[in-house]
């Protein structure tokens, strides 16, 4: 499988990339290439020009900044998976990074590239929605911060304007909180049949102060499960509350369509099961802190 011909430019800096994208609106940005290159090989897309930003190493970092963890857009999935800081403070993201594709894909793919591709089945979608992360974007004359809930416009359509580049993803770190991401797949390395990210912040012993639930592969975009979140926030986290919230995620938030991986009914049932498990996994992590 060979893509159509294209021109190739290796970017040397962010500003050069932005200038280039302004003068070449047809150009596509190449980060890790784990979505773009397969698409080009199948000729589903044939951009006439690629700007390779993988050499911009100042966009590859993981750091703590007061009450947030900041991740550079070009940080690779395996760098996220292997980060001790993320495992300790943002384990929901370690969970997701560890189940994306396979080892070879995780060695190339980047968090910014995955988000910009806006695949409704991509694992990070469930995490950024659950965590209320923000996505930082630069354009030639702009610098914007987009809340995760506003980022996924449609299938493969992120809230990016032409010529804009994701630079950083910011995950807030709240006290007495944790999260977990769980994925159901037919076999290791597949796209999710259902993926659920759950974030919980508690107050006192069991009262839920804050909750975030993100669903993957059950709609045109990754879905922020507002009904499930509202069923949790302010409540005492009894079994019944958790079960009701999971049921809301399945029946009211998820919008699955039937395909080879399963019927709508099956996928809703799996959303229910995995939401419940993810919430309990998050709570169990809070208890161990």
């Amino acid at each position, binding site marked *: 499988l060979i893509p159509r011909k294209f021109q190739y430019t290796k970017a040397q800096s962010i500003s050069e990339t932005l200038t280039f994208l302004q003068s070449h609106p047809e150009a596509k940005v190449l980060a890790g290439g784990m979505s773009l290159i397969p698409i080009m090989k199948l000729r589903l897309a044939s951009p006439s020009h690629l700007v390779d930003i993988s050499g911009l190493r100042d966009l590859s970092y993981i750091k703590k900044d007061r009450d947030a963890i900041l991740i550079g857009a070009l940080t690779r999935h395996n760098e996220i998976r292997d980060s001790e800081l993320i495992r300790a403070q943002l384990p929901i993201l370690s969970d997701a990074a560890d189940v994306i594709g396979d080892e*070879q894909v995780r060695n190339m793919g980047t968090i910014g590239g995955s988000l910009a591709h806006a695949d409704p089945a991509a694992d990070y979608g469930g995490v950024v929605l659950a965590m209320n992360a923000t996505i930082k974007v630069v354009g030639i004359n702009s610098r914007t911060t987009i809340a995760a809930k506003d980022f996924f416009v449609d299938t493969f359509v992120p809230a990016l304007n032409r010529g804009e580049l994701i630079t950083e993803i910011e995950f807030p770190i709240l006290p007495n909180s944790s999260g977990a991401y769980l994925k159901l797949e037919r076999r290791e390395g597949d796209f999710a049949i259902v993926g659920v990210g759950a974030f919980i912040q508690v107050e006192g012993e069991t009262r839920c102060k804050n909750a975030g639930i993100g669903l993957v592969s059950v709609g045109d975009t990754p879905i922020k499960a507002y009904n499930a979140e509202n069923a949790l926030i302010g409540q005492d986290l009894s079994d019944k509350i958790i079960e009701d919230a999971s049921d809301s995620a399945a029946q009211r938030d998820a919008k699955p369509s039937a395909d080879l991986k399963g019927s709508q009914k099956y996928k809703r049932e799996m959303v229910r099961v995995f939401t419940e498990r993810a919430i309990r996994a998050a709570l169990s992590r809070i208890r161990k802190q």
Partner: protein
Amino acid sequence: MEMERNLKTPENSQKASVQVAQADNKIKVAINVNGKTYTREIEPRLLLVYFLREDLGLTGTHIGCDTTNCGACTVLLNGRNIKSCTIFAVQADGANITTIEGLASPDGKLHPIQEAFTECHALQCGYCTPGMIMSSLALLNRKPNPSEAEIRKALSGNLCRCTGYINIIKAVKLASERMNKQ
């Protein structure tokens, strides 16, 4: 089929020819493969696996599915295993690539992983073997004492259609023991 028919409309064919003329630029790269630097002028769309097999004649790296699934094309890029069918050779400019040909000593002595694969009968047809060995090498470099679960997960991006996984896992364990003693 629909796409090919559409291409033949006059408007599109004109567009396409302009694009081809523009895109005929070749890029000069210097890629280190198995310790030797190769300088070549290549088309941007040349995939690394074709660069290795056809430009350099290193046909030990196989093309299996050509769709980022099977892992037969696995090589190391700066020590990390990647699928060489899913990276353009221009992206590897300045990088160090290791292929299966780079594992044995110059005197022909096999790498401990290659020896273990032989002894454990970790292959039947052998098509997936170069990729399996490169992924095993990346794993053992990163984790010298992997558990069976870790071996299985690390090799999940490499498919063996002869269903020889059990012996492959045995071979990785054996290689790990031997490499740790060295």
